[in-house]
Protein backbone atom coordinates (compact mmCIF):
# COMPACT_ATOMS: atom_id res chain seq x y z
CA UNK A 1 0.00 0.00 0.00
CA UNK A 2 2.76 2.47 0.97
CA UNK A 3 4.70 1.69 -2.16
CA UNK A 4 1.61 2.40 -4.15
CA UNK A 5 1.20 5.72 -2.40
CA UNK A 6 4.87 6.52 -2.91
CA UNK A 7 4.56 5.69 -6.54
CA UNK A 8 1.53 7.88 -6.80
CA UNK A 9 3.32 10.75 -5.12
CA UNK A 10 6.39 10.45 -7.33
CA UNK A 11 4.14 10.32 -10.33
CA UNK A 12 2.38 13.40 -9.10
CA UNK A 13 5.68 15.16 -8.52
CA UNK A 14 7.00 14.08 -11.88
CA UNK A 15 4.00 15.40 -13.70
CA UNK A 16 4.11 18.68 -11.76
CA UNK A 17 7.80 18.99 -12.60
CA UNK A 18 6.97 18.40 -16.23
CA UNK A 19 4.26 21.01 -16.03
CA UNK A 20 6.68 23.47 -14.47
CA UNK A 21 9.20 22.79 -17.22
CA UNK A 22 6.53 23.26 -19.85
CA UNK A 23 5.50 26.58 -18.37
CA UNK A 24 9.11 27.77 -18.23
CA UNK A 25 9.65 26.73 -21.83
CA UNK A 26 6.49 28.54 -22.87
CA UNK A 27 7.54 31.83 -21.27
CA UNK A 28 11.01 31.52 -22.80
CA UNK A 29 9.52 30.73 -26.19
CA UNK A 30 7.19 33.66 -25.92
CA UNK A 31 10.07 35.98 -25.15
CA UNK A 32 11.82 34.86 -28.34
CA UNK A 33 8.96 34.04 -30.66
CA UNK A 34 6.76 37.10 -30.17
CA UNK A 35 9.44 39.70 -31.00
CA UNK A 36 10.55 37.61 -33.96
CA UNK A 37 6.99 37.49 -35.27
CA UNK A 38 6.70 41.23 -34.79
CA UNK A 39 9.91 41.96 -36.65
CA UNK A 40 8.99 39.55 -39.44
CA UNK A 41 5.59 41.22 -39.92
CA UNK A 42 7.25 44.61 -39.99
CA UNK A 43 9.77 43.46 -42.62
CA UNK A 44 7.02 42.02 -44.83
CA UNK A 45 4.86 45.15 -44.65
CA UNK A 46 7.91 47.34 -45.17
CA UNK A 47 9.11 45.50 -48.27
CA UNK A 48 5.60 45.40 -49.74
CA UNK A 49 5.14 49.11 -49.13
CA UNK A 50 8.62 49.92 -50.41
CA UNK A 51 7.94 48.08 -53.66
CA UNK A 52 4.80 50.07 -54.18
CA UNK A 53 6.42 53.49 -53.76
CA UNK A 54 8.25 54.99 -56.72
CA UNK A 55 10.25 58.15 -56.19
CA UNK A 56 12.35 60.27 -58.52
CA UNK A 57 15.37 58.51 -57.00
CA UNK A 58 14.03 55.03 -57.74
CA UNK A 59 12.04 52.68 -55.57
CA UNK A 60 11.73 53.29 -51.87
CA UNK A 61 14.44 51.18 -50.17
CA UNK A 62 13.27 47.85 -48.81
CA UNK A 63 15.01 45.61 -46.28
CA UNK A 64 17.24 44.13 -48.95
CA UNK A 65 18.53 47.50 -50.12
CA UNK A 66 19.29 48.52 -46.57
CA UNK A 67 21.14 45.26 -45.97
CA UNK A 68 23.30 45.90 -49.03
CA UNK A 69 24.01 49.44 -47.89
CA UNK A 70 25.17 48.32 -44.45
CA UNK A 71 27.83 46.21 -46.15
CA UNK A 72 28.63 49.00 -48.61
CA UNK A 73 29.03 51.65 -45.96
CA UNK A 74 31.30 49.45 -43.94
CA UNK A 75 33.45 48.62 -46.97
CA UNK A 76 33.70 52.31 -47.85
CA UNK A 77 34.91 52.96 -44.33
CA UNK A 78 37.57 50.26 -44.58
CA UNK A 79 38.67 51.53 -47.99
CA UNK A 80 38.93 55.06 -46.70
CA UNK A 81 41.04 53.92 -43.78
CA UNK A 82 43.36 52.07 -46.16
CA UNK A 83 43.69 55.20 -48.26
CA UNK A 84 44.55 57.16 -45.15
CA UNK A 85 47.17 54.67 -44.04
CA UNK A 86 48.68 54.69 -47.53
CA UNK A 87 48.72 58.50 -47.52
CA UNK A 88 50.68 58.63 -44.28
CA UNK A 89 53.03 55.93 -45.43
CA UNK A 90 53.79 57.86 -48.66
CA UNK A 91 54.63 60.90 -46.57
CA UNK A 92 56.96 58.93 -44.33
CA UNK A 93 58.78 57.41 -47.28
CA UNK A 94 59.11 60.84 -48.87
CA UNK A 95 60.37 62.37 -45.63
CA UNK A 96 62.89 59.61 -45.12
CA UNK A 97 64.21 60.14 -48.64
CA UNK A 98 64.57 63.88 -48.13
CA UNK A 99 66.24 63.37 -44.77
CA UNK A 100 68.77 61.03 -46.35
CA UNK A 101 69.59 63.70 -48.95
CA UNK A 102 69.56 66.65 -46.58
CA UNK A 103 70.05 65.89 -42.85
CA UNK A 104 69.00 69.41 -41.80
CA UNK A 105 65.49 68.96 -43.26
CA UNK A 106 62.60 69.22 -40.75
CA UNK A 107 60.13 66.46 -41.66
CA UNK A 108 56.50 67.54 -41.99
CA UNK A 109 53.43 65.36 -41.63
CA UNK A 110 50.30 66.69 -43.24
CA UNK A 111 46.93 65.54 -41.91
CA UNK A 112 44.72 63.41 -44.13
CA UNK A 113 41.71 65.34 -45.35
CA UNK A 114 39.60 62.65 -46.92
CA UNK A 115 35.83 62.44 -46.72
CA UNK A 116 34.33 61.33 -43.39
CA UNK A 117 32.75 57.93 -43.67
CA UNK A 118 29.43 56.86 -42.21
CA UNK A 119 31.18 55.28 -39.26
CA UNK A 120 33.22 58.44 -38.63
CA UNK A 121 29.97 60.40 -38.58
CA UNK A 122 28.49 58.02 -36.02
CA UNK A 123 31.53 58.62 -33.82
CA UNK A 124 31.26 62.40 -34.19
CA UNK A 125 27.58 62.42 -33.27
CA UNK A 126 28.14 60.18 -30.27
CA UNK A 127 31.00 62.30 -28.95
CA UNK A 128 28.94 65.46 -29.47
CA UNK A 129 25.83 64.19 -27.74
CA UNK A 130 27.77 62.81 -24.78
CA UNK A 131 29.85 65.94 -24.23
CA UNK A 132 26.79 68.18 -24.49
CA UNK A 133 24.98 65.89 -22.10
CA UNK A 134 27.80 65.87 -19.56
CA UNK A 135 28.12 69.67 -19.67
CA UNK A 136 24.37 69.91 -19.09
CA UNK A 137 24.55 67.49 -16.15
CA UNK A 138 27.37 69.48 -14.55
CA UNK A 139 25.22 72.62 -14.70
CA UNK A 140 21.75 71.18 -14.18
CA UNK A 141 22.19 68.80 -11.24
CA UNK A 142 23.66 71.32 -8.77
CA UNK A 143 21.16 73.92 -9.98
CA UNK A 144 18.30 71.44 -9.59
CA UNK A 145 19.40 70.57 -6.06
CA UNK A 146 19.60 74.25 -5.13
CA UNK A 147 16.15 74.92 -6.62
CA UNK A 148 14.72 71.86 -4.85
CA UNK A 149 16.13 72.89 -1.49
CA UNK A 150 15.14 76.54 -1.58
CA UNK A 151 11.54 77.50 -2.10
CA UNK A 152 12.58 81.11 -2.73
CA UNK A 153 15.01 80.13 -5.47
CA UNK A 154 12.36 77.89 -6.97
CA UNK A 155 9.85 80.72 -7.08
CA UNK A 156 12.46 83.00 -8.62
CA UNK A 157 13.71 80.62 -11.29
CA UNK A 158 10.60 78.66 -12.14
CA UNK A 159 9.15 81.16 -14.67
CA UNK A 160 12.41 81.18 -16.61
CA UNK A 161 12.57 77.40 -16.72
CA UNK A 162 8.93 77.12 -17.72
CA UNK A 163 9.44 79.52 -20.63
CA UNK A 164 12.67 78.03 -21.93
CA UNK A 165 11.64 74.41 -21.47
CA UNK A 166 9.20 74.22 -24.43
CA UNK A 167 11.55 76.03 -26.83
CA UNK A 168 13.02 73.73 -29.45
CA UNK A 169 16.81 73.98 -29.16
CA UNK A 170 16.85 74.35 -32.94
CA UNK A 171 15.49 77.85 -32.44
CA UNK A 172 18.61 78.59 -30.43
CA UNK A 173 20.87 77.25 -33.15
CA UNK A 174 21.30 80.49 -35.18
CA UNK A 175 21.98 82.44 -32.00
CA UNK A 176 24.42 79.84 -30.75
CA UNK A 177 26.22 79.82 -34.09
CA UNK A 178 26.58 83.60 -34.15
CA UNK A 179 27.67 83.84 -30.53
CA UNK A 180 30.20 81.04 -30.88
CA UNK A 181 31.75 82.58 -33.98
CA UNK A 182 31.91 85.94 -32.24
CA UNK A 183 33.19 84.80 -28.86
CA UNK A 184 35.12 81.63 -29.56
CA UNK A 185 38.08 83.08 -31.46
CA UNK A 186 41.45 81.45 -31.18
CA UNK A 187 44.10 80.91 -33.83
CA UNK A 188 44.35 77.22 -33.07
CA UNK A 189 41.00 76.15 -31.68
CA UNK A 190 41.12 73.05 -29.52
CA UNK A 191 37.59 72.14 -30.56
CA UNK A 192 36.06 72.79 -33.94
CA UNK A 193 33.43 75.55 -33.99
CA UNK A 194 30.89 73.22 -35.54
CA UNK A 195 31.42 70.82 -32.67
CA UNK A 196 30.96 73.60 -30.10
CA UNK A 197 27.75 74.71 -31.84
CA UNK A 198 26.23 71.25 -31.81
CA UNK A 199 27.38 70.62 -28.28
CA UNK A 200 25.85 73.83 -26.90
CA UNK A 201 22.60 73.03 -28.68
CA UNK A 202 22.55 69.61 -27.03
CA UNK A 203 23.35 71.18 -23.66
CA UNK A 204 20.51 73.68 -24.04
CA UNK A 205 17.96 70.96 -24.61
CA UNK A 206 19.32 68.69 -21.85
CA UNK A 207 19.38 71.26 -19.07
CA UNK A 208 15.64 71.81 -18.55
CA UNK A 209 14.41 68.27 -18.01
CA UNK A 210 17.34 67.61 -15.71
CA UNK A 211 16.81 70.75 -13.63
CA UNK A 212 13.09 70.07 -13.30
CA UNK A 213 13.41 66.40 -12.40
CA UNK A 214 16.25 66.97 -9.96
CA UNK A 215 14.44 69.78 -8.19
CA UNK A 216 11.21 67.80 -7.95
CA UNK A 217 13.13 64.83 -6.59
CA UNK A 218 14.90 66.99 -4.01
CA UNK A 219 11.71 68.78 -2.97
CA UNK A 220 9.85 65.47 -2.53
CA UNK A 221 12.47 63.97 -0.22
CA UNK A 222 11.05 61.98 2.70
CA UNK A 223 10.53 64.29 5.68
CA UNK A 224 11.70 61.58 8.09
CA UNK A 225 15.14 61.55 6.45
CA UNK A 226 15.32 65.32 6.74
CA UNK A 227 14.40 65.00 10.42
CA UNK A 228 17.16 62.42 10.93
CA UNK A 229 19.57 64.92 9.46
CA UNK A 230 18.22 67.69 11.70
CA UNK A 231 18.49 65.56 14.84
CA UNK A 232 22.09 64.75 13.92
CA UNK A 233 22.73 68.44 13.17
CA UNK A 234 24.43 67.54 9.90
CA UNK A 235 26.12 70.59 8.34
CA UNK A 236 24.43 71.74 5.11
CA UNK A 237 27.07 70.33 2.80
CA UNK A 238 27.06 66.94 4.52
CA UNK A 239 23.26 67.04 4.47
CA UNK A 240 23.28 67.50 0.68
CA UNK A 241 25.97 64.90 0.18
CA UNK A 242 24.68 62.19 2.54
CA UNK A 243 20.91 62.68 2.44
CA UNK A 244 19.69 64.87 -0.42
CA UNK A 245 21.85 63.54 -3.25
CA UNK A 246 21.32 59.82 -2.64
CA UNK A 247 17.62 60.38 -1.95
CA UNK A 248 17.07 62.13 -5.26
CA UNK A 249 19.23 59.84 -7.40
CA UNK A 250 16.18 58.05 -8.88
CA UNK A 251 14.62 61.37 -9.92
CA UNK A 252 17.93 62.65 -11.27
CA UNK A 253 18.27 59.57 -13.44
CA UNK A 254 14.73 59.95 -14.75
CA UNK A 255 15.68 63.45 -15.86
CA UNK A 256 18.94 62.28 -17.38
CA UNK A 257 17.34 59.49 -19.40
CA UNK A 258 14.62 61.83 -20.61
CA UNK A 259 17.06 64.49 -21.70
CA UNK A 260 19.51 62.10 -23.35
CA UNK A 261 16.66 60.78 -25.49
CA UNK A 262 15.63 64.28 -26.52
CA UNK A 263 19.25 65.30 -27.05
CA UNK A 264 19.88 62.51 -29.54
CA UNK A 265 16.84 63.48 -31.59
CA UNK A 266 17.70 67.16 -31.51
CA UNK A 267 21.33 66.62 -32.39
CA UNK A 268 20.52 64.85 -35.66
CA UNK A 269 18.21 67.70 -36.66
CA UNK A 270 20.79 70.30 -35.64
CA UNK A 271 23.47 68.59 -37.70
CA UNK A 272 21.19 68.55 -40.73
CA UNK A 273 20.30 72.19 -40.31
CA UNK A 274 23.75 73.55 -39.55
CA UNK A 275 25.76 71.16 -41.71
CA UNK A 276 27.85 70.24 -38.69
CA UNK A 277 29.63 66.92 -38.99
CA UNK A 278 27.68 63.95 -37.73
CA UNK A 279 24.91 61.57 -38.72
CA UNK A 280 22.57 64.45 -39.54
CA UNK A 281 25.03 65.79 -42.06
CA UNK A 282 25.37 62.33 -43.54
CA UNK A 283 21.61 62.16 -44.08
CA UNK A 284 21.49 65.65 -45.58
CA UNK A 285 24.49 65.04 -47.83
CA UNK A 286 22.95 61.85 -49.15
CA UNK A 287 19.69 63.68 -49.79
CA UNK A 288 21.50 66.44 -51.71
CA UNK A 289 23.58 63.86 -53.52
CA UNK A 290 20.48 62.33 -55.03
CA UNK A 291 22.00 59.15 -56.44
CA UNK A 292 20.09 55.94 -56.89
CA UNK A 293 21.59 54.70 -53.64
CA UNK A 294 20.82 57.77 -51.58
CA UNK A 295 17.45 56.68 -50.22
CA UNK A 296 18.70 53.30 -49.10
CA UNK A 297 21.67 54.93 -47.39
CA UNK A 298 19.37 57.36 -45.61
CA UNK A 299 17.14 54.48 -44.56
CA UNK A 300 20.20 52.71 -43.16
CA UNK A 301 21.09 55.87 -41.24
CA UNK A 302 17.55 55.97 -39.85
CA UNK A 303 17.95 52.49 -38.42
CA UNK A 304 21.39 53.22 -37.06
CA UNK A 305 20.13 56.42 -35.40
CA UNK A 306 17.31 54.47 -33.79
CA UNK A 307 19.57 51.69 -32.66
CA UNK A 308 22.09 54.09 -31.13
CA UNK A 309 19.30 55.96 -29.37
CA UNK A 310 18.16 52.64 -27.93
CA UNK A 311 21.69 51.79 -26.81
CA UNK A 312 22.10 55.20 -25.16
CA UNK A 313 18.93 54.64 -23.16
CA UNK A 314 20.00 51.14 -22.16
CA UNK A 315 23.39 52.52 -21.17
CA UNK A 316 21.79 55.09 -18.88
CA UNK A 317 19.58 52.39 -17.40
CA UNK A 318 22.63 50.24 -16.73
CA UNK A 319 24.38 53.17 -15.09
CA UNK A 320 21.30 53.78 -12.97
CA UNK A 321 21.27 50.12 -11.90
CA UNK A 322 24.84 50.43 -10.74
CA UNK A 323 24.50 53.80 -8.99
CA UNK A 324 20.96 53.88 -7.63
CA UNK A 325 19.86 52.24 -4.40
CA UNK A 326 16.28 52.14 -5.62
CA UNK A 327 16.33 49.03 -7.78
CA UNK A 328 12.61 49.27 -8.50
CA UNK A 329 12.86 52.55 -10.33
CA UNK A 330 15.67 51.15 -12.48
CA UNK A 331 13.70 48.19 -13.78
CA UNK A 332 12.24 49.79 -16.88
Amino acid at each position, binding site marked *: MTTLINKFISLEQGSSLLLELKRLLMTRLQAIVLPTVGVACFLIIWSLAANAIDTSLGKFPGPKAVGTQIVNLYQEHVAEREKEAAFYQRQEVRNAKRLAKDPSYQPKIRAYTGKETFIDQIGTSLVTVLSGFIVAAIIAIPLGIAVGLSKALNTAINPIIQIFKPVSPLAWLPLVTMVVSAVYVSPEPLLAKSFVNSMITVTLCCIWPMVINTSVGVAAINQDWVNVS*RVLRLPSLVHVQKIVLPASIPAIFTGMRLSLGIAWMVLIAAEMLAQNPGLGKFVWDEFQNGSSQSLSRIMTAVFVIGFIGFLLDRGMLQLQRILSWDKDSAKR
Partner: protein
Amino acid sequence: MDLLLDISKIDMVFPTPKGDFTALKEVDLKIHKGEFISLIGHSGCGKSTVLNVVAGLYQATKGGVLLNNKYVTEPGPERAVVFQNHSLLPWLTAYQNVELAVKQVFKKTMNSREMKEWIEHNLKLVHMDHAIHKRPDEISGGMKQRVGIARALAMQPEVLLMDEPFGALDALTRAHMQDSLMEIQEELNNTVIMITHDVDEAVLLSDRIVMMTNGPAATVGEILDVNLPRPRDRISLAQDAEYNRLRSAVLTFLYEKQRKVETISSREKVASSSTQKVDVA
Protein backbone atom coordinates in the same frame (compact mmCIF):
# COMPACT_ATOMS: atom_id res chain seq x y z
CA MET B 1 16.19 61.97 41.68
CA ASP B 2 17.47 64.90 39.68
CA LEU B 3 15.29 66.73 37.24
CA LEU B 4 16.48 66.17 33.70
CA LEU B 5 13.78 67.45 31.43
CA ASP B 6 11.28 70.17 32.19
CA ILE B 7 8.43 70.54 29.73
CA SER B 8 7.14 73.84 30.99
CA LYS B 9 3.60 74.89 30.16
CA ILE B 10 3.86 74.59 26.41
CA ASP B 11 1.17 75.78 24.03
CA MET B 12 1.26 74.78 20.43
CA VAL B 13 -0.76 76.74 17.91
CA PHE B 14 -0.75 75.86 14.21
CA PRO B 15 -1.86 78.49 11.75
CA THR B 16 -4.40 77.06 9.32
CA PRO B 17 -6.33 78.68 6.48
CA LYS B 18 -9.40 78.65 8.76
CA GLY B 19 -7.57 80.42 11.56
CA ASP B 20 -5.32 79.29 14.37
CA PHE B 21 -5.64 75.78 15.67
CA THR B 22 -4.53 75.16 19.23
CA ALA B 23 -3.12 71.66 19.38
CA LEU B 24 -1.60 71.79 22.87
CA LYS B 25 -2.56 73.91 25.84
CA GLU B 26 -0.33 74.20 28.89
CA VAL B 27 1.28 70.80 28.68
CA ASP B 28 3.43 70.57 31.77
CA LEU B 29 5.62 67.63 32.66
CA LYS B 30 8.78 67.10 34.69
CA ILE B 31 10.93 64.09 33.93
CA HIS B 32 13.74 62.71 36.09
CA LYS B 33 16.90 61.01 35.00
CA GLY B 34 16.45 57.34 34.16
CA GLU B 35 12.68 57.50 34.00
CA PHE B 36 10.65 55.68 31.39
CA ILE B 37 7.61 57.77 30.48
CA SER B 38 4.78 56.72 28.21
CA LEU B 39 2.54 59.24 26.54
CA ILE B 40 -0.82 57.71 25.81
CA GLY B 41 -3.94 59.19 24.31
CA HIS B 42 -6.28 58.92 21.35
CA SER B 43 -4.89 59.56 17.92
CA GLY B 44 -4.87 63.24 17.06
CA CYS B 45 -4.54 64.32 20.69
CA GLY B 46 -1.12 65.85 20.09
CA LYS B 47 1.19 63.21 21.57
CA SER B 48 3.49 63.46 18.58
CA THR B 49 3.42 67.23 18.80
CA VAL B 50 4.72 67.07 22.39
CA LEU B 51 7.50 64.74 21.28
CA ASN B 52 8.40 66.95 18.33
CA VAL B 53 8.60 69.99 20.59
CA VAL B 54 10.92 68.11 22.96
CA ALA B 55 12.96 66.93 19.97
CA GLY B 56 13.20 70.53 18.79
CA LEU B 57 11.61 69.74 15.43
CA TYR B 58 8.75 72.11 16.37
CA GLN B 59 9.01 75.32 18.35
CA ALA B 60 6.38 75.74 21.05
CA THR B 61 4.20 78.82 20.62
CA LYS B 62 4.27 79.51 24.35
CA GLY B 63 6.31 77.99 27.13
CA GLY B 64 9.35 75.87 26.47
CA VAL B 65 11.43 72.81 27.14
CA LEU B 66 14.44 72.79 29.44
CA LEU B 67 16.99 69.99 29.25
CA ASN B 68 19.47 70.16 32.15
CA ASN B 69 18.25 73.72 32.70
CA LYS B 70 19.10 74.63 29.12
CA TYR B 71 16.44 75.92 26.78
CA VAL B 72 15.79 73.66 23.79
CA THR B 73 15.72 75.63 20.52
CA GLU B 74 16.72 73.16 17.84
CA PRO B 75 17.02 69.40 17.29
CA GLY B 76 20.13 67.68 18.51
CA PRO B 77 21.61 64.24 19.07
CA GLU B 78 21.28 64.51 22.87
CA ARG B 79 17.54 64.11 22.22
CA ALA B 80 17.67 61.19 19.79
CA VAL B 81 14.41 60.24 18.09
CA VAL B 82 13.22 56.78 17.07
CA PHE B 83 10.66 57.46 14.37
CA GLN B 84 7.57 55.39 13.80
CA ASN B 85 8.57 54.43 10.28
CA HIS B 86 12.14 53.49 11.22
CA SER B 87 13.35 56.23 8.80
CA LEU B 88 16.53 54.39 7.97
CA LEU B 89 18.27 55.67 4.88
CA PRO B 90 17.52 52.97 2.31
CA TRP B 91 20.79 53.40 0.41
CA LEU B 92 22.88 52.61 3.49
CA THR B 93 23.40 49.30 5.28
CA ALA B 94 22.46 48.86 8.93
CA TYR B 95 26.07 49.52 9.85
CA GLN B 96 26.30 52.64 7.68
CA ASN B 97 23.06 54.02 9.07
CA VAL B 98 24.43 53.83 12.59
CA GLU B 99 27.81 55.02 11.35
CA LEU B 100 26.30 58.23 9.97
CA ALA B 101 25.10 59.10 13.48
CA VAL B 102 28.27 57.98 15.26
CA LYS B 103 30.55 59.86 12.89
CA GLN B 104 28.59 63.04 13.42
CA VAL B 105 28.25 62.81 17.20
CA PHE B 106 31.68 61.46 18.13
CA LYS B 107 33.83 62.86 15.36
CA LYS B 108 36.02 64.69 17.88
CA THR B 109 36.13 62.18 20.69
CA MET B 110 36.56 58.79 18.99
CA ASN B 111 39.07 57.40 16.54
CA SER B 112 37.92 55.20 13.70
CA ARG B 113 38.59 51.95 15.55
CA GLU B 114 36.61 53.07 18.58
CA MET B 115 33.81 54.17 16.28
CA LYS B 116 33.70 50.77 14.62
CA GLU B 117 33.54 49.04 18.00
CA TRP B 118 30.86 51.42 19.22
CA ILE B 119 28.71 50.88 16.13
CA GLU B 120 29.04 47.12 16.41
CA HIS B 121 28.34 47.26 20.13
CA ASN B 122 25.08 49.11 19.58
CA LEU B 123 23.94 46.81 16.82
CA LYS B 124 24.73 43.86 19.09
CA LEU B 125 22.68 45.47 21.85
CA VAL B 126 19.58 45.31 19.65
CA HIS B 127 20.50 41.80 18.44
CA MET B 128 21.27 42.91 14.90
CA ASP B 129 24.89 41.78 14.80
CA HIS B 130 24.00 39.02 12.33
CA ALA B 131 22.75 41.46 9.67
CA ILE B 132 25.17 44.33 10.02
CA HIS B 133 25.77 44.74 6.31
CA LYS B 134 22.19 44.31 5.14
CA ARG B 135 20.25 47.16 3.57
CA PRO B 136 16.88 48.17 5.04
CA ASP B 137 14.95 46.59 2.17
CA GLU B 138 16.61 43.26 2.90
CA ILE B 139 15.44 43.00 6.51
CA SER B 140 12.02 42.75 8.18
CA GLY B 141 10.05 45.60 9.74
CA GLY B 142 11.02 44.61 13.28
CA MET B 143 14.68 44.43 12.33
CA LYS B 144 14.52 47.86 10.73
CA GLN B 145 13.07 49.28 13.93
CA ARG B 146 15.89 47.59 15.88
CA VAL B 147 18.46 49.32 13.70
CA GLY B 148 16.56 52.58 14.20
CA ILE B 149 16.84 52.09 17.97
CA ALA B 150 20.52 51.19 17.66
CA ARG B 151 21.10 54.39 15.72
CA ALA B 152 19.38 56.44 18.41
CA LEU B 153 21.19 54.65 21.26
CA ALA B 154 24.53 55.12 19.49
CA MET B 155 24.12 58.88 19.86
CA GLN B 156 24.26 58.35 23.66
CA PRO B 157 21.27 60.63 24.11
CA GLU B 158 20.26 62.19 27.41
CA VAL B 159 16.66 61.52 26.47
CA LEU B 160 15.51 58.90 24.02
CA LEU B 161 12.34 59.95 22.23
CA MET B 162 10.29 57.18 20.68
CA ASP B 163 7.31 58.00 18.47
CA GLU B 164 5.12 54.88 18.46
CA PRO B 165 8.22 52.81 17.81
CA PHE B 166 6.37 49.51 17.52
CA GLY B 167 3.11 50.82 16.10
CA ALA B 168 3.73 49.47 12.62
CA LEU B 169 4.72 45.98 13.77
CA ASP B 170 2.62 42.84 14.16
CA ALA B 171 1.67 41.77 17.69
CA LEU B 172 4.27 38.99 18.06
CA THR B 173 7.15 41.11 16.79
CA ARG B 174 5.96 43.95 18.98
CA ALA B 175 6.06 41.79 22.13
CA HIS B 176 9.54 40.67 21.18
CA MET B 177 10.67 44.24 20.67
CA GLN B 178 9.19 45.30 24.00
CA ASP B 179 11.19 42.58 25.76
CA SER B 180 14.32 43.71 23.95
CA LEU B 181 13.69 47.29 24.93
CA MET B 182 13.24 46.34 28.61
CA GLU B 183 16.48 44.37 28.46
CA ILE B 184 18.35 47.33 26.96
CA GLN B 185 16.74 49.66 29.47
CA GLU B 186 17.93 47.48 32.33
CA GLU B 187 21.47 47.74 31.03
CA LEU B 188 21.62 51.41 30.07
CA ASN B 189 18.96 52.98 32.29
CA ASN B 190 18.17 55.65 29.71
CA THR B 191 15.62 58.38 30.14
CA VAL B 192 12.89 57.58 27.65
CA ILE B 193 9.72 59.25 26.45
CA MET B 194 7.66 56.85 24.40
CA ILE B 195 4.43 57.55 22.59
CA THR B 196 2.08 54.63 22.39
CA HIS B 197 -1.55 53.80 21.86
CA ASP B 198 -1.14 50.34 23.32
CA VAL B 199 -2.31 50.13 26.95
CA ASP B 200 -0.39 46.91 27.72
CA GLU B 201 2.77 48.32 26.26
CA ALA B 202 2.47 51.43 28.38
CA VAL B 203 1.93 49.53 31.64
CA LEU B 204 4.60 46.94 30.90
CA LEU B 205 7.39 49.36 30.02
CA SER B 206 6.79 52.58 31.93
CA ASP B 207 7.65 54.09 35.27
CA ARG B 208 4.95 56.69 34.70
CA ILE B 209 2.11 56.83 32.22
CA VAL B 210 1.09 60.29 31.09
CA MET B 211 -2.45 60.26 29.78
CA MET B 212 -3.44 63.09 27.51
CA THR B 213 -6.87 64.60 27.00
CA ASN B 214 -8.39 64.86 23.57
CA GLY B 215 -7.55 67.75 21.30
CA PRO B 216 -7.95 70.49 20.35
CA ALA B 217 -6.09 72.20 23.17
CA ALA B 218 -4.97 68.83 24.52
CA THR B 219 -3.14 68.72 27.80
CA VAL B 220 -1.95 66.26 30.42
CA GLY B 221 -5.03 64.60 31.90
CA GLU B 222 -3.72 62.23 34.52
CA ILE B 223 -0.35 60.79 35.44
CA LEU B 224 -0.21 57.20 36.64
CA ASP B 225 2.76 55.86 38.60
CA VAL B 226 3.68 52.30 37.74
CA ASN B 227 5.47 50.75 40.66
CA LEU B 228 5.69 47.20 39.40
CA PRO B 229 9.03 45.60 40.27
CA ARG B 230 11.56 45.09 37.51
CA PRO B 231 12.45 42.96 35.66
CA ARG B 232 8.90 42.57 34.48
CA ASP B 233 7.60 39.46 32.85
CA ARG B 234 4.56 39.78 30.64
CA ILE B 235 3.22 36.31 31.40
CA SER B 236 3.32 36.47 35.19
CA LEU B 237 2.09 40.06 35.11
CA ALA B 238 -1.06 38.97 33.34
CA GLN B 239 -2.22 37.46 36.67
CA ASP B 240 -0.89 40.34 38.77
CA ALA B 241 -3.56 42.38 40.58
CA GLU B 242 -1.59 45.62 40.54
CA TYR B 243 -0.87 45.26 36.81
CA ASN B 244 -4.54 44.77 36.09
CA ARG B 245 -5.51 47.70 38.29
CA LEU B 246 -3.13 49.99 36.36
CA ARG B 247 -4.31 48.61 33.07
CA SER B 248 -7.94 49.26 33.88
CA ALA B 249 -7.06 52.73 35.18
CA VAL B 250 -5.62 53.64 31.78
CA LEU B 251 -8.52 52.02 29.98
CA THR B 252 -11.02 53.90 32.15
CA PHE B 253 -9.29 57.18 31.39
CA LEU B 254 -9.26 56.55 27.67
CA TYR B 255 -12.79 55.22 27.65
CA GLU B 256 -14.14 58.22 29.51
CA LYS B 257 -12.30 60.61 27.25
CA GLN B 258 -13.74 58.80 24.29
CA ARG B 259 -17.23 59.37 25.72
CA LYS B 260 -16.47 62.99 26.43
CA VAL B 261 -15.93 63.66 22.74
CA GLU B 262 -19.34 62.33 21.93
CA THR B 263 -21.31 63.95 24.72
CA ILE B 264 -19.75 67.29 25.53
CA SER B 265 -18.32 68.68 22.32
CA SER B 266 -20.76 70.32 20.01
CA ARG B 267 -21.18 69.27 16.41
CA GLU B 268 -18.98 72.05 15.12
CA LYS B 269 -16.14 71.05 17.45
CA VAL B 270 -16.20 67.49 16.20
CA ALA B 271 -16.06 68.74 12.64
CA SER B 272 -13.16 71.06 13.34
CA SER B 273 -11.16 68.46 15.23
CA SER B 274 -11.58 65.94 12.45
CA THR B 275 -10.39 68.36 9.79
CA GLN B 276 -7.43 69.47 11.79
CA LYS B 277 -6.22 66.06 12.81
CA VAL B 278 -3.89 66.12 9.84
CA ASP B 279 -1.90 68.98 11.32
CA VAL B 280 -1.47 67.33 14.65
CA ALA B 281 -0.52 63.84 13.61
